C-alpha cells in the first residue's frame, strides 16, 4: 500500500490515496463540489469548468527542499492566481482546497452564467426538471439576471430524434461530452459524436438506425441536463411524482439491479403504472449501467387487455372462465390421481420461491420435474461456479509479481447473451485482464480480447479440450475437426495465460448449440478449470450465460434441463406447465397433448400451449409481486412489488400469524385474479392435504428454502436486503452528479457458497464424450444463435423496440449465397429437414461464415433448438 496523502479541504483534514482527484476526496468526506462533465466512472476531461476551487500548496524552499514556515510555525501556503479544476487535479501533500470560498463560488457562478447564455431554461416542460444539476445549481447560486443579450441566445433543434429510442434537445445540451465519452469508453459504439464547434456544437448520429447501440439509455441517465431523454419516458411524468420499487431485471442471467419508478394514473383508473426503469447501483453486479433491453423490455409485465385475469377451465371443449375454487379442486383431484404420472415443466423466468414450491408439490406426489431451456451444464456451475466475494470489478492486470487475471468466453456472443457482463469484461480487459474469445465467428468481444480464436461450428467442447490438452504433458487425441485450431500457437498461448492467471473464469454460452452440445461444453470448461486449479475461490469458476433470469437459481434448487422433453411430455398422465410455451417454440410438441392427458398451464398470457390446456391459471407478473432471482454469478437478489395486480386478493387461508388473525377468523374473501406463481402449487397442495408448502408470502417460502436447500443455508430476506456503502456515491440528489440512476438502499444480495456434493468435483475423464462434429458433405446446416432483441413473446410487448427487432431472418454464408444467387436483404425459403417446417425469411449475408453454415436466431419464429440440417432456396 502506498502512503495516503494528507490535505485540507474546506478546513477539514483529509487523507486520500495518491492519485485521488480533489472532487472524489471531497465527496468522501461529504463535500459536494458541483460537476457537469466529470463523472466518477470516467476519466476527467475538464470541459465544463463548473468544479472550480481555490487550491493552495505548501511553499518549498528550493535550496533546502524544506517547507517554508509562517511565523507561527505553520507551513506557508501559496495560492494560485487562478481557480483550478477539482475534477482534474489530484491531491498532493499539504494541499489546501477551498471549495466554499467567495472566490470559488464566484467562479462557478460565472461558469453558470456562461452556460445559461445559451440554455433555453425550459425547465417547466423538461423531463430532467426536478433531478437536473443545472437547475439545482442555478437555483442555489446562479445569477438571477444575465448580463448577456437575450436576443443572442443560440437556437438549435429542440426535437431531434437520434433514432427511435432517444430524443435530443440540442438547445439544452451543455456540451459536457458525457454521452459521447460513455459510448466510446463503455459501449464501444461510437455512434454519437460532436459536430461543429463553440456555441454551434451539436450531437449527431450517423448510424443506421440512429444511435445504434444496446446502451443508449445510459446516456440519458448520465446527461446532466434534459438534452437526452428516452422516448419511453419523455413527457411521461415529473420525477417528484414517482415512487420507487427496487427490482431485478428479468431478461438475462446478469441480474442487473433496477429501480422501477411508478405512479398512479387517472387513465388507468387510479392504478399504479411503471413509468420508467432505471439502473440501481450494485457495484458487484451491474455497477450503474443497464442495457436497453432491461430498460425498455418490461412492458410484458404490465397489465393489459391480453393478460389472463381469471382461471379458465375446459368445458365442452372450450376454455371457460371459472373460479379459483373450481379450478384448484379439479387440479387437486387429477394431480392426486396422476401421482407419479405428473410431470412439471417450468421456465426459468420463475423466481426461486416459485421453483421451490413447484418442485415440492411435484416431488411429494412422486412426479417428475423438468427445466425448460435450450442450455445445459448448470449442475456444474453449482459445483465449480463463482463463490462469495467474486466481482468482475476485481479482474484486471494482477499486481506486482502477479500474473493478470484471465477470462475465457466460449461459444458465446457475450453482448447479445449477457450484455452487462460484456460491458464489465471490456473494462476488465482495459485494466489488463486477458480476455480469451473462443468462438465460431467474430463477435464484438474480439475488439477487447487479447486472444481471438475460432473453432469450426459444432466443435465448441473440442476446442476447450484442445486448450486443456495443450497444457498437458501427454496431449490427448483430439477430434479431426479441430486439428487446425490445436496447432495454432495462439491457442497454446491463451491456454498458458489461462493456466497461469491469478484468477480465471470461464463464461460459456449457447452460440450454435443445443442442450447436449452446451452440456458437453460446460463439462469441457469445468475440466479446464479443475485441471488449472481455478475453482473454489473468489473470482474463479464457471458461469453460464443463461437465456433467462433465474436459470442459475433453478439449477441451484435442483432443477435440471430436460433432454428428453417430448418423451416426458408424451408419457405423462398429467402435465403442469409453468412459464413455458413449448408448443409455440416447436409445433412438434403438440403431439404430446390431447387424448385424456390432463394439462394445467400457468402463465401471464394465453400462450399457444395454454390453448391446449384443460386448466389455465393466471399469474402475477414479476413487477406485481415479491420474489428472488439467482444470477449467473450465483448472487441471490430480491425484487419487490412495484404495482398491485388489479384484482388480486390475499389467498384464502394463511399461515397463522397475529397480523392475519382477522382474515382467518372473519369471512374470507374468495380468491380472485392472478396469483403469485409460488402460491398456486401451495394452494393445490393444501387441497391434497399436504402440509409444509407455504403460500402466505414469498419471504416465508424463501425462509423454507434457507432451511432445506444446503447452498441457501442461513439465507433470509433480511440478509438479501443488507447494504453497505458503495463507491462512487451516486444517485443522491447532490451536485456531485452521477446521474438519475438510484442508490441501492434495498439490498445488494448474497452470493451462494458452492454446492458440496460430498466428493469435490473432479475433472471428468470425459474426452470420449467430445464428439468429432463435421458438417455434412452436402447441404446446409443451421446453427441457433441468440440475439438480444428477439421476437420472443415477452419483448414483443415493447412496441418501441419493434423496429430494432425487425423481421425474421437467417444469416447465410457468402459461398452458398453466391451459389444460390441470394443477395443481402433478399428473401429465401428455409426448410428444416427434421421438422419439415418451411418458411420464407429475410436473408442477411456474412461473408466470414464458413461454407454450408446458416445462422438461425432463436425466438424469431423459426423452431430451432439445436444444430439441424436445412435447405435454403431463393424466394421472390
Amino acid at each position, binding site marked *: 500500500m502506498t502512503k495516503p496523502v494528507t490535505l485540507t479541504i474546506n478546513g477539514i483534514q483529509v487523507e486520500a490515496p495518491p492519485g485521488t482527484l480533489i472532487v472524489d476526496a471531497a465527496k468522501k468526506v461529504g463535500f459536494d463540489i458541483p460537476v457537469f462533465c466529470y463523472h466518477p466512472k470516467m476519466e476527467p476531461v475538464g470541459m465544463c469548468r463548473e468544479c472550480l476551487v481555490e487550491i493552495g500548496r505548501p511553499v518549498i524552499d528550493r535550496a533546502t527542499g524544506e517547507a517554508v514556515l509562517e511565523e507561527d510555525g505553520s507551513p506557508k501556503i501559496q495560492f494560485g492566481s487562478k481557480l483550478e479544476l477539482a475534477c482534474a487535479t489530484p491531491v498532493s501533500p499539504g494541499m489546501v482546497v477551498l471549495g466554499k470560498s467567495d472566490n470559488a463560488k464566484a467562479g462557478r457562478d460565472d461558469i453558470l452564467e456562461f452556460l445559461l447564455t445559451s440554455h433555453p431554461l425550459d425547465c417547466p416542460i423538461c423531463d430532467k426538471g426536478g433531478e437536473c444539476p443545472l437547475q439545482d445549481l442555478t437555483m442555489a447560486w446562479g445569477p438571477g439576471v444575465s448580463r448577456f443579450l437575450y436576443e443572442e441566445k443560440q437556437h438549435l433543434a429542440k426535437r431531434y430524434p437520434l433514432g427511435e429510442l432517444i430524443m435530443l434537445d440540442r438547445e439544452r445540451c451543455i456540451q459536457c461530452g458525457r454521452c459521447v465519452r460513455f459510448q466510446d469508453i463503455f459501449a464501444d*459504439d461510437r*455512434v454519437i*459524436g460532436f459536430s*461543429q464547434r463553440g456555441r454551434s456544437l451539436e450531437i449527431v448520429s*450517423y*448510424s443506421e438506425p440512429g444511435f445504434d447501440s444496446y446502451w443508449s439509455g445510459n446516456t440519458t441517465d448520465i446527461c446532466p441536463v434534459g438534452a437526452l431523454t428516452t422516448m419511453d419516458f419523455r413527457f411521461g411524468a415529473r420525477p417528484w411524482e414517482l415512487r420507487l420499487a427496487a427490482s431485478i431485471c428479468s431478461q438475462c442471467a446478469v441480474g442487473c439491479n433496477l429501480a422501477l419508478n411508478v405512479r398512479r394514473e387517472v387513465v388507468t383508473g387510479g392504478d399504479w403504472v411503471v413509468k420508467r426503469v432505471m439502473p440501481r447501483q450494485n457495484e458487484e453486479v451491474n455497477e450503474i449501467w443497464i442495457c436497453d433491453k432491461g430498460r425498455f423490455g418490461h412492458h410484458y409485465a404490465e397489465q393489459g387487455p391480453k393478460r389472463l385475469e381469471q382461471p379458465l377451465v375446459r368445458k365442452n371443449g372450450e376454455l371457460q372462465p371459472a373460479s379459483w375454487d373450481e379450478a384448484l379442486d379439479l387440479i387437486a383431484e387429477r394431480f392426486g390421481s396422476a401421482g407419479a404420472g405428473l410431470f412439471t415443466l417450468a421456465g426459468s423466468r420463475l423466481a426461486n420461491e416459485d421453483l421451490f414450491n413447484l418442485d415440492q408439490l411435484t416431488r411429494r406426489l412422486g412426479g417428475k420435474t423438468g427445466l425448460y431451456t435450450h442450455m445445459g451444464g448448470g449442475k456444474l456451475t453449482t459445483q465449480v461456479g463463482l463463490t462469495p466475494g467474486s466481482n468482475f470489478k476485481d479482474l484486471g492486470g494482477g499486481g506486482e509479481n502477479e500474473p493478470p487475471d484471465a477470462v475465457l468466453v466460449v461459444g458465446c456472443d457475450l453482448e447479445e447473451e449477457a450484455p452487462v457482463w460484456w460491458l464489465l469484461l471490456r473494462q476488465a480487459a482495459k485494466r489488463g485482464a486477458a480476455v480469451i474469445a473462443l468462438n465460431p465467428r467474430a463477435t464484438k468481444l474480439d475488439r477487447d480480447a487479447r486472444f481471438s480464436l475460432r473453432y469450426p461450428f459444432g466443435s465448441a467442447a473440442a476446442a476447450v479440450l484442445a486448450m486443456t490438452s495443450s497444457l498437458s504433458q501427454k496431449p490427448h487425441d483430439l477430434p479431426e475437426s479441430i486439428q487446425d485450431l490445436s496447432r495454432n500457437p495462439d491457442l497454446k498461448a491463451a491456454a498458458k495465460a489461462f493456466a497461469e492467471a491469478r484468477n480465471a473464469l470461464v463464461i460459456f454460452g449457447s452460440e450454435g448449440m443445443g442442450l447436449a452440445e452446451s452440456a458437453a461444453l460446460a463439462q469441457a470448461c469445468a475440466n479446464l478449470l479443475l485441471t488449472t486449479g481455478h475453482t473454489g475461490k473468489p473470482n474463479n469458476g464457471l458461469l453460464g450465460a443463461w437465456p433467462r433470469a433465474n436459470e442459475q437459481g433453478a439449477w441451484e434448487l435442483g432443477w435440471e434441463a430436460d433432454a428428453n422433453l417430448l418423451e416426458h411430455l408424451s408419457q405423462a398422465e398429467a402435465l403442469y406447465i409453468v412459464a413455458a410455451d413449448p408448443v409455440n417454440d416447436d409445433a412438434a410438441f403438440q403431439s404430446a397433448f390431447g387424448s385424456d392427458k390432463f394439462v394445467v398451464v400457468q402463465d401471464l398470457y394465453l400462450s399457444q400451449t395454454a390453448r391446449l390446456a384443460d386448466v389455465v391459471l393466471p399469474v402475477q407478473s414479476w413487477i406485481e409481486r415479491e420474489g428472488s432471482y439467482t444470477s449467473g454469478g450465483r448472487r441471490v437478489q430480491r425484487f419487490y412489488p412495484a404495482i398491485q395486480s388489479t384484482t388480486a386478493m390475499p389467498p384464502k387461508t394463511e399461515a397463522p400469524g397475529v397480523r392475519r388473525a382477522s382474515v382467518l377468523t372473519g369471512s374470507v374473501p374468495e380468491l380472485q385474479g392472478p396469483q403469485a406463481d409460488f402460491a398456486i402449487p401451495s394452494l393445490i397442495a393444501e387441497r391434497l392435504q399436504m402440509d409444509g408448502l407455504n403460500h402466505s408470502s414469498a419471504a416465508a417460502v424463501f425462509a423454507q428454502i434457507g432451511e432445506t436447500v444446503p447452498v441457501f443455508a442461513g439465507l433470509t430476506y433480511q440478509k438479501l436486503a443488507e447494504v453497505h456503502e458503495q463507491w462512487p456515491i451516486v444517485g443522491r440528489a447532490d451536485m456531485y452528479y452521477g446521474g438519475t440512476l438510484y442508490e441501492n438502499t434495498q439490498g445488494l444480495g448474497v452470493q451462494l457458497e458452492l454446492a458440496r456434493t460430498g466428493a469435490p468435483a473432479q475433472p471428468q475423464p470425459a474426452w470420449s464424450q467430445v464428439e468429432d462434429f463435421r458438417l455434412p458433405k452436402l447441404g446446409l446446416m443451421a446453427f441457433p444463435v441468440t440475439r438480444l432483441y428477439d421476437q420472443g413473446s415477452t419483448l414483443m410487448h415493447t412496441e418501441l423496440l419493434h423496429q430494432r427487432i425487425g423481421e425474421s431472418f437467417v444469416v447465410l454464408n457468402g459461398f452458398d449465397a453466391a451459389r444460390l444467387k441470394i443477395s443481402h436483404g433478399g428473401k429465401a425459403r428455409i426448410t428444416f429437414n427434421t421438422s419439415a417446417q418451411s418458411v420464407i425469411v429475410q436473408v442477411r449475408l456474412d461473408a466470414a461464415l464458413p461454407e454450408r453454415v446458416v445462422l438461425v436466431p432463436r425466438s424469431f419464429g423459426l423452431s430451432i433448438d439445436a444444430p439441424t440440417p436445412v435447405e435454403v432456396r431463393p424466394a421472390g
Partner: protein
Amino acid sequence: MLERKYLAEKYAQEIQAILEKYPSDRRQSAVMPLLYLAQRDKMYVSREDILEIGEILGITSTEVASLIGFYTLYYDQPKGVYRIQVCVDLPCALRGAEKFLTELCDRLGIQPGETTPDGLIAIEPVMCLAACDKAPMFQVQSGAGLTYHENQTVENALSLIEQLRRDAAGRRVAGHERGRDANG
C-alpha cells in the same frame, strides 16, 4: 453486407497511396486525406461518401461526420462548384473588404452566402485568411484545391468568375464526350 464502392472504384490508386502512408494499426489517421479526396470529387462530402470512408477505415460514419463538422473547410452539403471566400475580418474590412463583397454580390445578383442560379459560384464571407495587408482578398475553393486572389477589384473578380464559368463548361463538354465514348 452492402458494400459501397464509389470512391474505391473511382480513386483506387489514390486511396491505396494514401493508406500506405499510415501504419496498418493507425489506419483511421487517413481520414483527413480521404475526406479531402471525397470533397475534391464534388465539392462536398456526401452521406454515401461518409459511410464509405468509415468502411474503408473501420471507424463509424458518425466519427467521420464529426470531423467534417469540426473543420470549416469540409462540407457535407452541396453549394457551388467554386466557393469564393471573401475575408471580411477587421484588417480586411479596414481596406474595404465589406464594400467589395457587397458590390461583387450585387453584380452577380445574389446575397453573401448564396450561390448563383447556375449553381456554379458560391460567395461567402469568412474570417482572417492571413493576407490582411493585401485586401480585398478572397480564396477560391474548388475540386482543384485552394487559390488565393489578393488586392482584388470587383472587375478583376468578375473576370475571374467568367473564366471559372468557361472552365466549368469546358469540363462538362469533355465529360459528356467521355461519357459517349464509354457508352460506345
